[in-house]
């Protein structure tokens, strides 16, 4: 798809914008996303790209614009390039990820502070909210975690794609997106009732109802697997297992 698009544009002499990728200058057609512009320029992205549809959060990017002191952050697959952009691609955001047993915790602020004591370092500078590509009010949910309002924190952070941009910008070194995950887990486990269908599905899994289907998928060859993937039908829920 993308190939044909760029070909048609090239034939019609598309307008170009000048961008700077890791310091070197490139002229790329307008209307490309940052990710596509980088690929157009010849970069092969091996890490830091995923769904290319703004859902997985793998392609977090920081950039600056010409004549603007601010650091901008975005998902590279969602943001079109602009003239004078200085940019790079972040392959990975390091963040601590402590192990916990959700059954041993209580839904309280101290459960969060126990694993993420750095939440207490929050300065309320709001840098995290400013970079969030999902427009989540990150500072507010971190503060809610600190105040023990887990329901509010879980709701606020629900759209998080875990790109990690907030974590890069945080002067207090809080891994916000992992904190939000813990808050959502605590909220889901203790504060809201477990839906019946989930119980049924978990029981089905435990009873090994889908074991056969999985085994089949594991053993068939690549070609057949591809074929099944392309012909899969989301609507055909009744048979079950087809889209797994």
């Amino acid at each position, binding site marked *: 798809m993308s190939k044909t698009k760029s070909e048609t544009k090239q034939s019609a002499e598309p307008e170009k914008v000048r961008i700077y990728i890791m310091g070197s200058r490139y002229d790329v057609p307008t209307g490309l996303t940052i990710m596509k512009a980088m690929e157009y320029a010849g970069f092969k992205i091996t890490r830091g790209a995923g769904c290319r549809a703004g859902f997985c959060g793998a392609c977090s990017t920081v950039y600056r614009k010409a004549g603007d002191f601010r650091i901008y952050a975005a998902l590279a697959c969602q943001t079109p390039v602009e003239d004078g952009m200085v940019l790079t691609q972040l392959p990975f955001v390091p963040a601590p990820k402590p192990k916990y047993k959700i059954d041993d915790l209580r839904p*309280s*602020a*101290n459960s969060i502070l126990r694993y993420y004591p750095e939440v207490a370092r*929050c*300065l*309320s*500078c*709001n840098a995290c*909210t*400013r970079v969030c590509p999902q427009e989540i009010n990150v*500072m*507010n949910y971190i*503060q809610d975690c*600190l*105040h*023990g*309002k887990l329901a509010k924190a879980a709701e606020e952070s629900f759209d998080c794609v875990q790109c990690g941009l907030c974590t890069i910008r945080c*002067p207090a070194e809080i891994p916000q997106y992992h904190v939000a995950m813990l808050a959502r887990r605590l909220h889901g486990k203790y504060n809201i009732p477990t839906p019946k269908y989930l119980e049924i599905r978990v029981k089905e899994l435990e009873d090994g109802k889908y074991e056969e289907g999985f085994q089949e998928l594991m053993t068939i060859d690549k070609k057949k697997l591809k074929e099944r993937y392309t012909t899969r039908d989301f609507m055909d829920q009744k048979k079950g297992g087809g889209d797994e």
Partner: protein
Amino acid sequence: MKYSYFPGCNLKTNSVGFEETAIAVSKKLNAELVEMPEWNCCGTIHTQTTDNLMKRIAPVRNLARAAEHVKNLENSSKEVIHKQVVTLCSMCNSTLKIVNAEVKEDTDKLEPINWQLEYDNLEYKGDMEVKHFLEILRDDIGYETIMESVEKPLKGMRIASYYGCMLLHPEIAKIDDQEAPTVMESIVQALGAEVIDWPFFKFCCGSYHIVGEEDLVNIQVHTLIDAAKKRNANSIIVACPLCRYNLEHEQIELIKNGKMKNSLPIFYFTQLMALALGIKPMKLYHFEEHLVNPKPFLKELGLIGRKKSK
């Protein structure tokens, strides 16, 4: 009369009794505390450095939000609201007060902080005042009103008032005389309890040293509790969640190590006010949060429990 009220983190997590009784008391005394809809942690302890603006953002953000809240309150309730934000926690009180005074005096400091708030469409104009609930009780309500509304005098309680450092220090954040404060004592008297005069009213409990250097806090608390017992006090009142935690936690440790025999119950001043004003239900008091259970003590004095009150 309504007041914009800033709760602070702890009153939402493990000092809920402090907040809920305070709000109940404020309603009863016709000076309702209305919580700000949006607020953040104020930073607990004020930075004493001159050059660190980062740590001043949080309190200024709260002040700006409080100013908005006052405006909204005024529009919705159609009465004049003082440009004040009321706090309960003594640490929040001192942090907000100090920073407020600093940025009012020095606009060079306020300006860069306001740049940080720009993104949220907030701006602090330096027009707010920070008050502790004790100041409201003293200045706006008055001890007489409190005395008149007492339904159940706290007979038998001999209370040592523990201010802690942050209600009286530093000069710009004090709520009363630094070396001879009387607010808490006057309230205790108004509630019908006996005032215990003791010199340790602002002897630091160790504060945040509880994290990492517990032995320091242990010695401080030992001194404090011994002094209160020597002067025949049977309970202590505080206005700070951290003081309450330190005093209770270390008492338990001291008893465990055999350095002390029996423990003194620690109360928030609002809990005792609510008790004397006859505020119910008991759920509001959240006595289960206290590490030293105060219920047996109150039952012994006939202040709680159904048999004697009805």
